[in-house]
């Protein structure tokens, strides 16, 4: 049984895994890129090795270097976290070939779920509902797609076979507009992934993105830990998650059915360790398999808070060959948990990523508040990695209590040195539709936009006093306060449109 774990990741998730290892009495080995020398995962680990420069492809994606560190350090197991190499079957296989325990599923399960067509077919055969579409049919040409489209029905989606994150995706409302949209989608897919193949999928309107956490040991026991509601997204990036889902809460029958289906999907690929089945759920509570994430999810903590199961501890125990300590009937969801992803990006400026040195952090704490983060005062946010800097997670007896608690925690959180999306979350929590739990995956983009102060006239006077006192006290009036014309450095702002790159 292994006693030393290498964490092949960085940021908050590396810290999360390091903590779990410490709490289980395991030794830890960190790997880091040059700009991450001072990162918490380096400081909290028992050992740490540099594996290259900042760019992921030269460091955190370098299997060879990571395996070399495993050999050098005497690590006997590897936890891949999420992102980077977490869903690479070849990496999982390479670990096994080296005699290392891979804290995750078998390579075959990663591979089966990583290929969308195989995944769809596999779970469909196991009786799991999938969104109607052509994904299982291989690469069809435009004429074939145009012929099949009316059978699926409009509206539908054109999606890139190789894709993800919205690249090469187009929404089609009628047969007439379809040829042009097909061409655009293929062009974009070709540019982004080097593969112009696309498929059609029924567009589920008013859909919610709800996922089920599963745990499976190597003795054939598979259970689920209930659902997470992940419909608060912007450009296919989750921003805030809650468990239970307001849509599922109170409908134990739906939860049981989704849970059973999720377990069946996992069993269909011989799944071991922690994984997540993502579903689209329509307004009539029909649910469709979207994909399986064969790894730890960013949002796993909300499930931990409502079920009391420490998922990372459990991942490690499973990888050490232990049996699951719970049966399905032991799992009770208690209270309500919400996670707000705190990103270094400016919600008032098109969510443009923000880099810089963090000068001052005041972290919220107290009852019912958990923060998973990898940053600290003095740390530099570089442009090499994604913008997630912290997860603010709260628990409350009820959804209302959780929302009030998250509000107070967001207001307490101070991060100086970069802009963050905390104001986005604050406004989201103030919106009536969110409070009522009435939202779908398009809510943020279509119905919710961070506004300036127009809706808060009553505090305008306070803002005016603040601005005036700061201007006055800094004695910068003469050079800075006169309203001027267009500035070069800010011109790009209103024109920017950042797109997330999926690798």
């Amino acid at each position, binding site marked *: 049984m292994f006693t030393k774990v290498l964490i092949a990741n960085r940021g908050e998730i590396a810290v999360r895994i390091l903590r779990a290892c410490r709490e289980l009495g395991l030794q830890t080995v960190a790997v880091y890129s040059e700009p991450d020398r001072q990162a918490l995962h380096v400081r909290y680990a028992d050992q740490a090795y540099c594996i290259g420069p900042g760019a992921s492809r030269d460091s955190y994606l370098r299997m060879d270097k990571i395996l070399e560190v495993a050999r050098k350090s005497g690590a006997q197991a590897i936890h891949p976290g999420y992102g980077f190499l977490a869903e690479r079957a070849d990496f999982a296989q390479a670990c096994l070939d080296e005699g290392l325990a891979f804290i995750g599923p078998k390579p075959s399960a990663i591979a089966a779920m990583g290929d969308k067509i195989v995944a769809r077919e596999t779970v469909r055969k196991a009786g799991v509902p999938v969104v109607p579409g052509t994904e299982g049919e291989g690469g069809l040409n435009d004429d074939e797609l145009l012929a099949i489209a009316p059978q699926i029905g409009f509206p539908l989606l054109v999606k890139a076979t190789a894709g993800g994150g919205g690249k090469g995706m187009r929404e089609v409302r009628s047969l007439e507009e379809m040829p042009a949209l097909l061409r655009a989608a293929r062009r974009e897919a070709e540019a982004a992934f080097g593969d112009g193949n696309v498929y059609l999928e029924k567009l589920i309107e008013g859909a919610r993105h709800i996922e089920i956490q599963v745990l499976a040991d190597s003795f054939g026991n598979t259970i689920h830990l209930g659902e997470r509601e992940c419909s608060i997204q912007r450009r296919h990036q989750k921003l805030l998650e809650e468990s239970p889902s307001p849509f599922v809460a109170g409908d134990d029958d739906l939860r049981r059915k989704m849970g059973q289906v999720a377990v069946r999907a996992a069993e269909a690929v011989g799944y071991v360790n922690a994984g997540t089945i993502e579903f689209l759920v329509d307004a009539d509570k029909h649910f469709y398999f979207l994909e399986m994430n064969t790894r730890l999810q960013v949002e796993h903590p909300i499930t931990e808070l409502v079920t009391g199961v420490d998922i990372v501890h459990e991942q490690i125990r499973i990888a050490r060959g232990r049996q699951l300590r719970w049966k399905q009937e032991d799992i009770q969801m208690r209270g309500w948990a919400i996670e707000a992803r705190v990103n270094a990006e400016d919600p*008032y400026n098109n969510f*443009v*990523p923000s*880099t810089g040195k963090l*000068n*001052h952090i005041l972290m919220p704490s107290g009852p019912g508040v958990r923060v998973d983060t990898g940053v600290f005062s003095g740390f530099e946010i570089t*442009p*090499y990695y*994604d*913008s997630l800097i912290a997860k603010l997670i709260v628990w409350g007896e009820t959804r209302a209590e959780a929302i009030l608690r998250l509000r107070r925690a967001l207001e307490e959180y*101070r991060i*100086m040195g970069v802009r963050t999306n*905390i*104001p986005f979350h*604050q*406004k989201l929590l103030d919106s009536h539709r969110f409070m009522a739990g009435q939202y779908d995956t398009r809510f943020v983009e279509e119905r919710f936009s961070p506004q*300036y*102060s127009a*809706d*808060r*006239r009553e*505090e*305008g*006077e*306070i*803002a*005016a*006093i*603040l*601005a*005036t*006192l*700061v*201007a*006055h*006290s800094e004695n*910068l*009036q003469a050079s*800075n*306060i*006169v*309203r*001027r*014309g*267009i*500035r*070069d*450095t*800010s*011109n*790009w702002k*209103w*024109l*920017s*449109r*950042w*797109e*997330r*790159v999926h*690798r």
Partner: protein
Amino acid sequence: MKYITTIDNQEYTVEILDDGVVTVNGKTYQVNFESIDGQPLYSLLVNGASYESMVYATEEAWEVLLRGYLYKATVEDEREKRLRVAAGGSQAQNAHFHLKAPMPGLVVAVPVSEGQEVKSGDVLVILESMKMQNELKSPQDGIVKRVRVQAGQSVERNQVMLSVHAPEA
């Protein structure tokens, strides 16, 4: 000291007196104002009410982030206001636009070349940073000048990548 502070076209006349007192449009407030840890983070007590705010100096305005809402404020003293009004309040048109990198990143593509005519909204540079790609567009019609970057090149924040000169310039 008397200031005219403008937020969303709403003008506030703010007078700062010596002893922790300000007036806003003639109303008097007791204020107590402190910066926290040397940061642009301020604790303000106004007649006993407690507020905390980040106040950022940007080139156009003071950005006041208060309880999740952002207020863009300009602050002028009376003399400046008079001068600006006397000058007709007009804003100068920039003849040249210098495209600066909004953040450190990698230039993915430069779809324009020197001397090329561009329209407002045309893509000038595609920049990648933090796993995101960004199309940086021209804010004005003009001629592309001084292209100083090429695909594959890393740039620093605020590095000028190219310029667009107004057609008549």
